[in-house]
């Protein structure tokens, strides 16, 4: 029983990362109609930057905040001056460009930091509570993720700019007629997504160890999480991520074994696309124009 609970808790912890990456994909998709395959690689790159800052002696939470802001600025600029120019490109050209971005960032990370596995420390105390069922790190990850989601919710729900992002995501033509720059909103969406990637990367790195491939599995699961919400739904992606984290661990421990964990994600992705493209919570919606 204790082993089972441990699996569930560990699953929820990695599920937080899946939820954050899934949410990042949803936000980029809703503000630009693009699926950013490089979302995971951007998270890895920025996690390395945080690692370098820590090596240079910067305190953990200062490095965390700096990386968060830096990732936001970098991604917003990337969208504004590079990716945004693809808005009229064909879907095939867009997919090719994102694969290019994926490989560029991946290689850049390997070029700068090498392919050796590094250790990123956890900001939380070692040891565990509740009789060994939950480690401090796991609890910390859950709290940081919850705080991030709460901040996002407040931003979207109660701020003027958040309202503009929602309006632009829902009906770009009407948003522009109301004086909202959809270009600016797209840059903002990319910035927010990259910041969420930083949180995901820095929270999973102590567990997965830091290497240039760290986020590739997380991206696949994040993508499956986003699809569980029909790639449109914010709560759908969050719930999807947590469920997938738990499912992955339980299936890995009791059914298919760790070797086939990623296969589970792929089966889910294909299954969702075939049987429930609108997501588990979604209603069938009109195609985005």
């Amino acid at each position, binding site marked *: 029983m204790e082993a089972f609970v441990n699996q569930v808790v560990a699953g929820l912890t990695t599920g937080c990362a899946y939820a954050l990456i899934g949410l990042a994909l949803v936000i980029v998709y809703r503000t630009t109609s693009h699926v950013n395959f490089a979302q995971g690689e951007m998270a890895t790159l920025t996690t390395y930057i945080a690692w370098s800052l820590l090596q240079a002696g910067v305190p953990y939470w200062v490095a965390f905040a700096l990386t968060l802001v830096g990732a936001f600025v970098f991604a917003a600029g990337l969208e504004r001056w590079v990716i945004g120019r693809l808005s009229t490109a064909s879907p095939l050209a867009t997919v090719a460009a994102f694969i290019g971005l994926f490989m560029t960032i991946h290689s850049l990370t390997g070029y700068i930091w090498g392919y050796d596995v590094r250790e990123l420390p956890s900001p939380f105390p070692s040891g565990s509570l509740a009789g060994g069922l939950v480690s401090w790190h796991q609890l910390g990850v859950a709290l940081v993720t919850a705080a991030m989601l709460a901040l996002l919710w407040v931003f979207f729900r109660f701020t003027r700019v958040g309202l503009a992002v*929602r309006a632009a995501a829902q009906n770009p*033509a009407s948003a*522009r007629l109301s004086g909202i720059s959809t270009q600016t909103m797209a840059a903002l969406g990319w910035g927010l997504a990259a910041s969420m990637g930083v949180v995901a990367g820095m929270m999973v790195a102590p567990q997965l160890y830091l290497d240039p491939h760290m986020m590739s599995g997380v991206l696949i699961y994040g993508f499956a999480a986003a699809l569980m919400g029909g790639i449109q739904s914010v709560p759908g992606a969050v719930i999807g991520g947590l469920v997938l984290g738990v499912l992955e661990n339980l299936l890995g421990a009791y059914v298919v074994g760790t070797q086939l964990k990623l296969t589970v994600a792929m089966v889910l992705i294909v299954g969702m696309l075939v049987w429930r493209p609108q997501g588990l919570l979604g209603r069938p919606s009109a195609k985005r124009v």
Partner: protein
Amino acid sequence: MSSIDKAQDVVLDVQRVSAGYGGPAVVRDVSLTVKAGRITALLGTNGVGKTTLMRAVCGMVQATGSVTLGSTAISGLRTEHIARLGIAHVPEGRGTFIDLTVEENLRVGCFARRSMEGAADTMERIYGWLPRLAERRDQRAGSLSGGEQQMLAIGRALMADPKVLLLDEPSFGLAPRVAAEVMHLLRRLQSETRMGILLVEQNTEIALGLADDAYVLRAGAVVASGAAAQLRESADLQAAYLGSH
């Protein structure tokens, strides 16, 4: 200000505008003006280019020619910039944000305001004009009836405190009673504000009854124009519609 000054006050000046979607021009060499505090009707059968002309004014399609708002040349500017300069466009099919609440829809209208000062007053005035929106302010816009959504779309446009309001078939698909309410609101705007209104309306009778001035489009070009009251009697109008009714 005397009513004669008001009549002379051109807020939107469209000169020799041609526009289309990459193929042959849909709108050809159209010139028209919209005056402050007056309703200008744009008439013509389906597919003559009324919607395309409105899109050209808002920078939503490729266009040549010149468009001037007050004393500002706006041709070639981006749609959101034109909106912030003072043109509010309620597109065909309303363009309501269905997943936002009624009040959020109105707040979205504020993004085109030059200043947030007075925004709360504008919102209260709109709720006064459209009491059914006030009752439903926290409801999802998608749950409103067609007529209420149309009112909301106009309300959102008014939140921008625009100099010019473009309305594309505001009574389309509405029951006659609801359409009459929309027209009643337009009449109030005509008498209580200095907004210039360009109205595309399928129902010629209603449009000419409401408008001060009118233009008739046929195959993308202006074939008749003048005071609405005169056009009503005119043979030109009959000719533009001949065989299509």
